């Protein structure tokens, strides 16, 4: 029976996260799958996308012939603006992140712990080269931090852990995790399962997870 379920693909995870974002939220979407969340927010639901290079009100990618080379998002991809957008400089942009003005940040991660720690920037504590970018600021500053990631590594190891094995991006800040198998909230008890994909049981999910899971 363990083969009768179909894990969500990238779009599926992005769409599932988008479902939980209500109108009016100010949201920063990290590089990778999180960026794709914007594609699944209904056009009539006004959600304000912040990009940390100084955009409040980022819109979808332009048609190739309409690319404006002066207008990119935090992944340096060309974007458009929505009506009502504004630009700020980098210090003001991170004042938004650190100052608690984001209703939500969505990041990718290597690992999340049952206490809400997130590790998303390095696989060893003292690598000489570091790709941090804005993740640490975004992870500590938003009103809530959600993570989108595969439930397990390619080798089948659990990314939902009692403790992170990789260096932390921030401690105790993750509130919700969207994986290709489930949606889980980080609570004072630990991970509470809010949603499992069809065909997968709670026990099957627990078998794929190092951290202890709790029923909703």
């Amino acid at each position, binding site marked *: 029976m363990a083969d009768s379920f179909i894990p969500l693909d990238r779009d599926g995870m992005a769409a599932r996260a988008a479902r939980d974002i209500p109108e009016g939220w100010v949201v920063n979407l990290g590089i990778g799958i999180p960026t794709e969340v914007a594609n699944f927010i209904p056009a009539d639901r006004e959600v304000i996308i912040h990009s940390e290079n100084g955009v409040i009100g980022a819109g979808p990618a332009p048609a190739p012939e309409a690319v404006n080379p002066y207008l990119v998002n935090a992944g340096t991809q060309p974007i458009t603006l929505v009506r*009502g957008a504004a630009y700020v400089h980098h210090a003001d942009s991170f004042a938004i992140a650190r100052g608690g003005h984001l209703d939500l940040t969505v990041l990718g991660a290597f690992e999340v712990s049952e206490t809400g720690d997130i590790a998303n920037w390095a696989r060893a504590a003292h690598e000489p080269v570091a790709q941090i970018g804005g993740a640490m600021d975004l992870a500590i500053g938003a009103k809530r931090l959600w993570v989108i990631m595969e439930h397990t590594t390619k080798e089948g190891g659990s990314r939902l852990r009692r403790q992170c094995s990789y260096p932390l991006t921030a401690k105790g800040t993750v509130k919700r995790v969207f994986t290709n198998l489930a949606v889980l909230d980080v609570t004072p008890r630990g991970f509470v399962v809010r949603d499992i994909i069809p065909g997968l049981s709670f026990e099957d999910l627990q078998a794929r997870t190092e951290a202890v899971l709790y029923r909703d």
Partner: protein
Amino acid sequence: MIDKFVRSAAEALDGVPDGATVLLAGFGDVGMAMTLLEGLIEQGARDLVLVCNSGGRDGSAVARLLTLGRVRKLVCSFVRPASDAGRLIAAGKLEFEVVPQGTLAERIRAAGAGIPAFYTPTAADTVLAEDREVREIGGRLCLLEYPLAGDLALVDAWEADRWGNLTYRDTQRNFNPIMAMAAKRTVAQTKHAVELGAIPPEHVMTSGIFVHHVLHVPD
């Protein structure tokens, strides 16, 4: 649809609790949200902490709020001894925290920017530093300062759209952009209500993400 316009100051200020810290922008009367300040007087909240640049002139709305006994503590950079504020302070009827104007601005900015503390050389060599934490940095004495956050900010704008994007005219700007970012609830009054998108994205001075309610107050 996001629409932050409200119909009255009463609606904008509904539920402001006693004890609230109120950030009031303005330099003299310029850039001060007079209709909202009158609304706050009407609304009735007491025991307020009022953060603004100065104690105001006699006859001003600020002086009225003070003389009505609605403010427990005034935090500002400048109070004339011969003013209502000055007399209330001298009589021990109003707590007073004097903050150099640049430090006042920076503490408000820190609140909005999520900076939990900073050092500044301003006032470090003065009586204002007595009994406070100082530290020498780069050979210079510096004073540790903490953010000044508001429960409520009253902002005065020139234009606003339904998302709460704002512009200011001339020196109306002053404390408005930083106070708008520093409060749990930011209410703006605006001379002009404009369509979403009418303010070019390069020229928005306060993003709507910092603004909770907008009251249109034409002439």
